[in-house]
């Protein structure tokens, strides 16, 4: 599984790093920073939750 974040769409709701702290982190402004672009199996569930809770639809997942 791979994740990407569309930096132009992200406005810092912070749902991603709240729900999947192992996969996503935050920059100074609270915008998303991908920590693990290649998501290991044990992190895939939280990564999906992050995608499903980002109001800006800024997270893309490729299985």
């Amino acid at each position, binding site marked *: 599984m791979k994740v990407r974040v569309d930096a132009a*769409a992200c*406005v*810092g*709701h*912070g749902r991603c*790093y*709240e729900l999947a702290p192992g996969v996503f982190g*935050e920059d*100074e*402004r*609270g*915008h998303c920073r991908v920590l693990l672009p290649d998501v290991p199996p044990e992190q895939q569930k939280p990564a999906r*939750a992050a995608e*499903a*809770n*980002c*109001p*800006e*639809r800024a997270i893309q997942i490729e299985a």
Partner: protein
Amino acid sequence: MSAPNPDPEARTVNLFAPEFARCPQEVYARMHAECPVARAAITNSPVISRYEDVIWALRHPDLFSSEMELQMALGTERPMIPQQIDPPAQTRYRKLLDPHFSRKKMAELEPDMRGYANDLIDRFIDAGRCDFDPDFAVPLPCTAFLRLIGLPLSDLEFFLELKNGIIRPQLKTQSIDQEVNRTARVESGRQIYAYFEEVIDDRTARPGDDLMTQLVHAEIGGERLSRNEILDICFLLLLAGLDTVTATLGCNIAYLAANPKQRRSLVEKPELTDGAVEELLRWETPVTGVPRVARKDMTVGGLEIKEGELVTLLLGAADIDADEFEASDRVDFERARNRHLAFGGGPHRCLGSHLARMELRVAMQEWHRRIPEYQVAPGEAPRYSPGIREVLYLPLVWDAPR
């Protein structure tokens, strides 16, 4: 979805009716079924209700601008920063402000918040009853605000008074005369500005470890913020950061008082708190809508919108849209997909969302840890205010601990 109802009456919504404040979900559902873009009663301005339309509008400030005629006339004649300005100017302010409101920064305040919540509960827990709004929902966010900016907590009463003078001057003046209330509001605004002026002087001379000091020394592109900019930012924080949290706390506790099964699930499994906070934000959406000005003629949801019209993006309606949310009329603390817009979206996403979430989490946890069983006082009913859905009257009772 059924075709839009051609009857113009049916295409009108009254967002200021008492029924709407109490149970807006019914009105939202009717809009989705009959008129996804309606016109507001009295003002006749367009009201957009579908999730897809609302998030699209939020993300297009070029079409839906936040730069509008100043409504909260306070004699400043300046827009509120950053709420009433569009990108790219707005972006510069957000770059400066965002780091001070990040989740990490807000987490530093969490232990103090827990203390404040418990101090308030200590005052009434033995009585077995409280008037939730003035006893808990109002003072908690106000205390958080004082702590955040770096103001003495002893100024709480003074602050509450001025805040009410601005947001609900009619409570203070006991008058419905617009002119009387406008004068009261301007006077309260003047006093708040004077108060903040003093604090700015103080922090310029004696820097502290607080937001006010950071604002005084902050720079955009090598330039310091002007005194007016700092004043306007503080003022907006006050307008945006108090009643919103108060309203959300009231909506949440009123919901849980009426739904004991869900309340018990929260008491038994405190780890559900975050999910409950998000789901109740979605279901109740206390800031029901945000205003924008149309920048050109458009047709949205079958309704023509003219350039220059004031448009309401009905966040609350978007948040129960069945096209976006599975089983949208069910309140589910374990909802897997919840992209709610209670904090808005796009460039104006609530600056205080991380603070608000922290306050809500702490308040819900501490309340239910200390007062797990409670109900609305028998024979009484909660009363919601229109606009921001503050539960002005929410008398609660419980068995006092022995």
